[in-house]
């Protein structure tokens, strides 16, 4: 490869790194994304020019089709569906690496068998495995998030044994590929196993564990690009791939820590299933209900309010009416903030995006560690569609499956109002102790509708 393209790839790599650096500050973030996109454009144009393939019609057509689909989806998708979109695109990235690896294998096996050396074969095998798992795993995650497949863990007897056997079969088939690289059958076996493994490793994982799964699959898509870089002896693929790989691993770690669970525990799946039956035997929690008018009065008389949003807020699309609630409170000089738990929602940072969409300033969104001290001198905490992240059992009850998980100390506030569709359990299948606390009041009904009414009451009071 000539020097020109190598230099272009170097510039692209630096721009990717700069782009991520700019993401470190919220005000520079948009610039960072732009810088990274310029890096990508440079890498693409340099490749097209060097290979002298600008004139190939089919390349133009493929790029046009891909761009049209990508842009259409990117501008059409509602913010509540971002996790689905990320899962879907992630799968496409994995499949692209997978297809490149396969294409390279065919080309070499037909034209230049000698170039299929040990390094090359290893990279191709890894790229097929990681790319395949990323693809089918992301598709299952997408279907679960989108509700096309139940978000409940799907488990069966001998599941882990089956996965282990498949992995062993994969290793065996890999050895056979090494012994005879021209045998397409072995490659087909590798493909089938890697696609199966992606499905089997994601189906036992429940909906609320999706933040971990998406982060991990994100990391895999980077690693797949990395492996493809080793196949093609291409530095820019390796740099970009390892940046993404690192990003996914860090997010995975943060998510696991915020749930006080190990990655292995999440990946083995089935969380909450055994617990659900145990939880039902416990004493029923007696709750106190509150109506819309009284809720409005409590807001009116408060001097400080903290809102704890959860996935239920996204489902009810309640973020916009919450902004109206905030405006009513701010008219009354009430200190109004949001407490964001790291695993609230279906992907890291999910709540922040929804609230940003509702035009809420990001300095109102406070991370768990920074706001947890403040709950005890707060008049009113309003929990919208969150459950396990405010369950005091995580602190008090060693028997609870969520014991040890860091939670928002909502229970320490003077009054807590919980907006909830009905009396259901959190995904962990445990009763929320908070609901039975003397300072806790339940506001039943669809979050969007009830909060709209509360805002209406507040407007009348003003």
């Amino acid at each position, binding site marked *: 490869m000539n020097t020109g393209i190598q230099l272009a790839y170097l510039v692209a790599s630096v721009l990717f790194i700069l782009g991520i650096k700019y993401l470190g500050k919220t005000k520079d973030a948009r610039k960072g994304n732009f810088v990274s996109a310029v890096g990508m454009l440079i890498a693409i144009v340099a490749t097209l020019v060097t290979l002298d393939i600008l004139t190939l019609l089919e390349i133009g057509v493929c790029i046009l089709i*891909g761009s049209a689909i*990508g842009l259409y989806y990117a501008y059409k998708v509602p913010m509540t569906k971002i996790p689905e979109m990320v899962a879907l695109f992630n799968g496409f*990235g994995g499949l692209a690496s997978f297809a490149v690896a396969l294409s390279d294998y065919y080309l070499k096996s037909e034209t230049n068998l000698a170039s299929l050396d040990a390094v090359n074969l290893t990279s191709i095998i890894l790229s097929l495995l990681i790319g395949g798992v990323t693809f089918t795993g992301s598709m299952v995650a997408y279907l679960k998030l989108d509700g096309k497949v139940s978000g409940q863990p799907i488990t069966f007897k001998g599941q882990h044994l089956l996965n282990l056997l498949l992995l062993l079969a994969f290793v065996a088939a890999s050895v056979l590929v090494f012994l005879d690289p021209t045998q397409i059958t072995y490659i087909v076996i590798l493909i089938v196993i890697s696609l199966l493994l992606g499905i089997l490793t994601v189906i036992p994982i429940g909906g609320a564990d999706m933040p971990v799964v998406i982060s991990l699959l994100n990391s895999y898509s980077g690693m797949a690009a990395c492996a493809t870089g080793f196949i093609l002896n291409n530095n820019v693929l*390796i740099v970009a791939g390892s*940046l993404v790989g690192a990003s996914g691993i860090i997010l995975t770690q943060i998510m696991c820590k915020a749930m006080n669970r190990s990655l292995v525990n999440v990946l083995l799946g089935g969380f909450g299933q055994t617990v659900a039956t145990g939880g039902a035997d416990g004493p029923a929690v007696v709750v106190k209900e509150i109506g819309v008018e009284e809720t409005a009065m409590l807001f009116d008389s408060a001097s400080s309010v903290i809102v704890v949003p959860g996935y239920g807020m996204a489902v009810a699309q309640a973020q916009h009416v919450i902004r109206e609630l905030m405006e009513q409170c701010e008219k009354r000089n009430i200190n109004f903030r949001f407490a964001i738990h790291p695993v609230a929602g279906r992907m890291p*940072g999910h709540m922040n995006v929804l609230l940003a969409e509702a035009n809420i300033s990001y300095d109102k969104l406070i991370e768990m560690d920074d706001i947890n001290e403040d709950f005890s001198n707060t008049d009113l905490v309003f929990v919208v569609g969150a459950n396990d992240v405010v369950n005091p059992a995580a602190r008090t009850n060693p028997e609870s499956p969520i014991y040890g998980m860091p939670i928002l100390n909502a229970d320490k506030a003077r009054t807590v109002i919980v907006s909830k569709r009905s009396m259901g359990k959190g995904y962990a299948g445990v009763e929320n102790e908070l609901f039975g606390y003397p300072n806790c009041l339940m506001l039943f009904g669809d979050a969007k509708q009830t909060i709209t009414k509360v805002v209406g009451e507040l407007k009348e009071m003003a």
Partner: protein
Amino acid sequence: MDASELIVLIYVLVLASYLGFELIFKVPPTLHTPLMSGSNAISGITIVGALIACNELGYSTLSKWLGMIALVLATINVVGGYAVTDRMLKMFKKK
């Protein structure tokens, strides 16, 4: 590929991963969703590999068709990923 070439690639891998860890730890949790969709777009760098694979002449080869499939998918990943990230970041405002 000989050993010296491989060593260079491993160098790049290790250093870039290290740099990635250092930089991504500094991204505030508020931006974790855009970080994810943005890094998703970056993982579309496979597009370069797809272009190389498309370079194969003659539609009769499976190589070329796989390259073209990869090209469409990677383009969706790159273009869609950057566009949706920009759309999100535009909304993050401080008043």
